């Protein structure tokens, strides 16, 4: 049971707030000797596994660390280019950590506006009159819940498929947004939310929702 992340999208499709509350770790570390039996390729400024799925390393996983040194994009933290370093037989044996690539803030912005349009298309393709957009999207690893307010702001929560009580959590987040972002005199509408009280109360609400699975009626 877990709540993975929260997104707030304004009425134009811009991401104005994002919080990763819990990221399950799916990483695999392994020591390799010279000819590396995985095929790596550069994709979107990241080094990804293109072929050679084995031992928990899957196609699409990114190189996260080499010999314990973190990798940022195509370079390691100490400035070496990953593919060049791994192409040199003198550097082996080498221990590489693989895992699902983390979303960069740019990708989060892109995904948020992508959801904004999917939401609109979902309501256009409806076979019934007067349908809203996507309210809940289900996959085998997570469920995405979305609540759109009358003013067009969307609150999106990604949670474990078994997590209950997300609907009341979404309304609670709306309440927190009204109380601590809208009533903050320094907050300007439609702009990224940078309010300390909003942060604190949101984290608190997520904790409560995660533990209880649900809010009691009336809260």
């Amino acid at each position: 049971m877990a709540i993975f992340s929260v997104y707030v999208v304004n009425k134009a499709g811009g991401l104005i707030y994002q919080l990763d509350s819990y990221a399950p770790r799916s990483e695999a570390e392994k020591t390799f000797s010279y000819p590396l039996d995985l095929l790596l390729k550069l994709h979107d400024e990241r080094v990804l596994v293109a072929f050679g799925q084995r031992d928990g390393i899957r196609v699409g996983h990114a190189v996260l660390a080499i010999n314990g040194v973190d990798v940022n994009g195509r370079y390691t933290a100490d400035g070496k280019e990953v593919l060049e370093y791994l192409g040199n037989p003198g550097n082996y044996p080498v221990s590489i950590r693989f895992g699902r690539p983390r979303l960069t803030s740019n990708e989060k912005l892109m995904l948020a506006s992508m959801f904004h349009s999917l939401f609109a298309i979902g309501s256009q393709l409806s076979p019934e009159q007067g349908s809203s957009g996507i309210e809940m999207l289900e996959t085998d690893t997570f469920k995405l819940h979305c609540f759109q307010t009358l003013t067009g702001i969307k609150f999106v929560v990604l949670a474990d498929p078994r997590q209950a009580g997300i609907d009341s959590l979404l309304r609670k987040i709306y309440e927190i947004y009204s109380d601590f972002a809208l009533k903050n005199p320094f907050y300007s509408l439609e702009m990224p939310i940078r309010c300390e009280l909003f942060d604190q109360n949101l984290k608190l609400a997520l904790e409560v929702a995660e533990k209880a699975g649900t809010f009691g009626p009336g809260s």
Partner: protein
Amino acid sequence: MTVHNLYLFDRNGVCLHYSEWHRKKQAGIPKEEEYKLMYGMLFSIRSFVSKMSPLDMKDGFLAFQTSRYKLHYYETPTGIKVVMNTDLGVGPIRDVLHHIYSALYVELVVKNPLCPLGQTVQSELFRSRLDSYVRSLPFFSARAG
């Protein structure tokens, strides 16, 4: 409970089959455009979901629901996509969509030498079997179609 409509796409985005039962609202665009919009939405949802997922996925995208309908999605490893829109009361129907693929599409279209693949299915047998199968589903309402 009702079944609104059903789309069948191949891996190139060609709409192989479309049929509707209780559909109260049309999208307001030509059918060809609607298929493209539906396929485009599913294509984007697939890539959206695979990026958003916190863990590695097995089946990927399964369903979404709005305030009025629920879209069920099933994709085979060969890229055939079966999409069924129902009302909100219907639970997971992966087995139903799988049956449409394996017992109807594969048996009556893929194994039929007169049906060219990658084009709209012309087979009357497929059409009528699919229609009677969907009408026999427990969540297909008895109301007149």
